[in-house]
């Protein structure tokens, strides 16, 4: 596969390490959320057959975490964003 890195352009997916659903960005706050919320965050997945937003890490590259929108049936990639930008857009900060 080839991932069109927002900064570096097309890069072979072999350079990346896959983590999973981009919902892993949505970590609850441990001081307010309890076990159930963390359970849902860490374990439950939509696992769609179709468009999937997912986290890839450019380990053999610039070490950016990316959010890749990819179809799990065709493997077509329609969008690639820096995970940091996605996280900020979701209101994550410090």
């Amino acid at each position, binding site marked *: *596969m080839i991932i069109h890195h927002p900064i570096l352009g097309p890069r072979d997916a072999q350079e990346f390490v*896959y983590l*999973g*659903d981009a919902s892993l960005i949505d970590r609850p706050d441990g001081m307010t959320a309890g*076990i159930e919320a963390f359970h849902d965050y860490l374990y439950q997945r939509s*696992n769609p057959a179709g468009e999937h937003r997912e986290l890839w890490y450019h380990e053999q590259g610039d070490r950016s975490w990316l959010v890749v929108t990819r179809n*799990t049936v065709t493997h077509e990639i329609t969008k690639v964003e820096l995970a940091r930008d996605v996280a900020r857009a979701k209101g994550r900060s410090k």
Partner: protein
Amino acid sequence: MRYSGFRVIAEALTGHNGWKPVWRDPTPQADYDYIIIGGGGHGLATAYYLAKEFGQARIAVLEKGYLGGGNVGRNTTIIRSNYLLDGNEPFYEFSLKLWEGLEQDFNYNAMVSQRGIINLIHTDAQRDAFTRRGNGMIMHGADARLLSRDEVRAMYPWLNFDNARFPIKGALMQPRGGTVRHDAVAWGYARGADMRGVDLIQNCEVTGMRIENGRIRGVETTRGFIGAKKVGVAVAGSSSKVMAHAGMRLPMESHVLQAFVSEGLKPVIEGVMTFGAGHFYVSQSDKGGLVFGGDIDGYNSYAQRGNLPVIEDVAEGGMALMPAIGRVRLLRTWGGIMDMSMDGSPIIDKTGIEGLYFNGGWCYGGFKATPASGWAFAHLLAKDEPHKTATAYRFDRFLKGLMIDEKGQGAQPNLH
């Protein structure tokens, strides 16, 4: 129709005209007591045991494609019960014992062949871990042996002993491990279930579930609505898709696992071998092909096909272990969809919806589990309580912190 050596000879001499269809193609009835969604190995085994062992009737198996077309038809055919953890080992040992009597039980030669499986050891730490595992296996009634380097060498003198990056230091062996002719397992269960009146309905895809007041009433299919008192889902590779019809999200991701077979060769590998340091495992089929595999591709996929890097990785592992196979040719690759659970272990459990039961999350260990999975799922469906060997396979183990994490990788499905 009962199969026997006599029958084969008699048919041969009379032009094979007497062989009957191995299963009917029934039209779906309006309703059943039990609907099993998924005509793969686990679904067919469930139906078979429901009818045979639990005395149930009015059972249908709904299959979206052809019987045995799921992972039971696209795996590397290995059976074993060499698990580490208490939550798993009794179940897989139960399964192995069922394999040992399966062919006589369902009167079909699935070529269960216990030629032994060895897990190679390359470090002292690995030996310690395998010692822990082997002791656990024996304590659960399974068989295990720890082999020295010399013993491994006596078995397979042509492995890379002298120029290896990660030298072979021994192996954990389970002599009762082996292989089975995978398609025949599906066909044998299908035939056995059909003979006991189970309706096996092919080309019938479930498109929805009718759920009223928290209770399942039946399923919508491409061949119309079919009512049911109880519905069991055993659809490896489609678990999340099917359970979404019931509004459920599951603790799993679907990944592609590639498997490989070489051109046919005269016998060279007797049993099954795994090479952990190289992410490689191999056996040789009765037809002569080397059947081998390695890691999953590692990204969510329903595509049933993989990519080149894993093919290369697997070949590297093979060549590192067996430098003589350089000129052996890879004949065919294929990809199966694995429902990779969050701890690498399966789920056989009720759901929050009355009458709806789930069996899935087998990662790439589902084939060897087929008999026990069918039995335990039939037990759960018939008696509403888990089989004694499958009590740990619950949905709520993640909420309770009772994960069954053989590899110790945590909640990351592609690492299991």
